[in-house]
């Protein structure tokens, strides 16, 4: 279980997150909703160790991790698939995926997960020898999710995986995320597409200007008039 207690994070003089508390239960799909600039990316970067908290604690499976480096956090089972994907653009798709196994480097486990990833995203099988940077946006997103899965995580953090993708591709990507979650991996997802993401989620949080303004079960959030007004355009 991942739990953030009252964390504040900032750049230079200003805080971006003000006392945020969030819990992601094991095996569940937790979605973070929020407009651009509400602090979703900052939140995720803080969890994966790319940014440091100013106050508050982050615990994963009972251990404090807010002072842990990104490379050690991956080893503890949290894989972060960042906004903008951050693939190794000149390396082949297969190399990108295999580098994802760096935290464990277990040969048999590598082949097992690679098979799972290629089953989830069959198109990557055809593209495996191509440079990752030459793929379409949707396919690159699949490589990024796949690379994060290769570390054999218990929690997968996905920062706006549907950003910039065509509607049909968005649907595919969200379906794959639901599938990953059904396979037993906890998912923490940030999305602007509230309806589609709440439909596959267990819990949801709404972030606005660096604060949690709503937290509830996903189906209740779908029915919440505030959420409907702000995100569903109803």
């Amino acid at each position: 279980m991942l739990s953030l207690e009252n964390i504040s994070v900032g750049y230079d003089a200003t805080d971006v997150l003000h006392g945020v508390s969030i819990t992601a239960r094991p095996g569940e799909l937790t979605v973070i909703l929020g407009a651009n600039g509400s602090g979703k990316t900052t939140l995720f970067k803080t969890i994966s160790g790319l940014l440091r908290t100013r106050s508050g604690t982050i615990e994963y499976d009972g251990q404090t991790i807010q002072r842990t480096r990104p490379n050690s956090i991956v080893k503890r089972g949290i894989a972060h698939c960042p906004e903008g994907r951050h693939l190794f653009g000149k390396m082949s798709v297969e190399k990108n995926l295999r580098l994802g196994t760096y935290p464990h480097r277990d040969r048999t486990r590598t082949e097992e997960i690679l098979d799972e990833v290629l089953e989830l995203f069959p198109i990557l099988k055809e593209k495996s020898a191509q440079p990752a940077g030459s793929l379409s946006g949707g396919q690159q997103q699949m490589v990024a999710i796949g690379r994060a899965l290769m570390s054999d995580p218990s929690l997968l953090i996905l920062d706006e995986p549907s950003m910039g993708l065509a509607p049909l591709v968005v649907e595919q990507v969200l379906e794959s995320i639901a599938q990953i979650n059904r396979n037993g991996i906890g998912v923490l997802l940030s999305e602007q597409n509230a309806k589609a993401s709440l439909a596959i989620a267990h819990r949801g949080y709404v972030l606005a200007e660096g604060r949690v303004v709503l937290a509830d079960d996903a189906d209740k959030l779908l029915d919440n008039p505030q959420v409907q007004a702000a995100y569903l355009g109803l």
Partner: protein
Amino acid sequence: MTLFTQQLFNGVALGGVYCLAAIGLTLVFGVLRIPNLAHGSLYMLGAYVTYFFLTTVGVPYVAAIGIAALILFVLGVLLERLVFHPLRNSPHTHHMIAAIGAMFFFQAVAQAIWGADFRRMETPISGSVHILGAEISAQRIVIIVTAVVVLSLLTWFIKRSIHGQTIEAIEQDRTGAALVGINPAMVSMLTLGLSALLVTIAAGLVSPINLLSPTMGDSLNLKVFAIIILGGLGSLPGAIVGSFALAIAETMTSTYISSAVGEAVAFIVLVAVLAIKPTGLFAKAVQR
């Protein structure tokens, strides 16, 4: 024609030496994003440590180079850890000042131990081979063969082994690398260690042809910087092609025009590249 063949072989041998020196520098630039101005002084130390093991300790030539390469690897790791790592968040001028400081320090150490006079490393490999009418010294054949073997091993390491791939991963995307669990601090140490190891092999190979002195790294430093700018900063193929191109240009102009022009070729090339195509022949998109 014989003269031409002769000089072509000399150029290729010199290119092999430049290549071993330039590849490390370009790797360091790719990973640490700094021009390591102390690279030439690592070359100089590599030569002296090889000389020490060969003449003072008396181990065989190849073993002397091997031991020196390992010692310099450790020194490179320490240089990264003690000098560059603490400066990782400071402006880039600080790295350059620190690198120049390290360079003077290494030169002073070499001068204190071995003196300022030129020293000669006795050629352990003698004789020569006749190829296409040209007489090629065995030492140059050894240089060419060693360069090819070392470069092949290095390419295998960087492209195939997972630890080597971390170098390219960091070059291509730092954030992505950190998120797949790669520790940038470890890779920085590995890369600087590797660059010192490679430049020591170059120094050990070429020292029997040239003379040793505490400032022997200065001209090499300028030439390898010209090479990696010609090839495109951070580019491995660029460093290889640039090394051989520059070395052959240098030997040919020395032969057919004058040795003074030969020495100047690197700088003529450097100015031309910066004026016409500043990103180099094999430009890499340098992300900051």
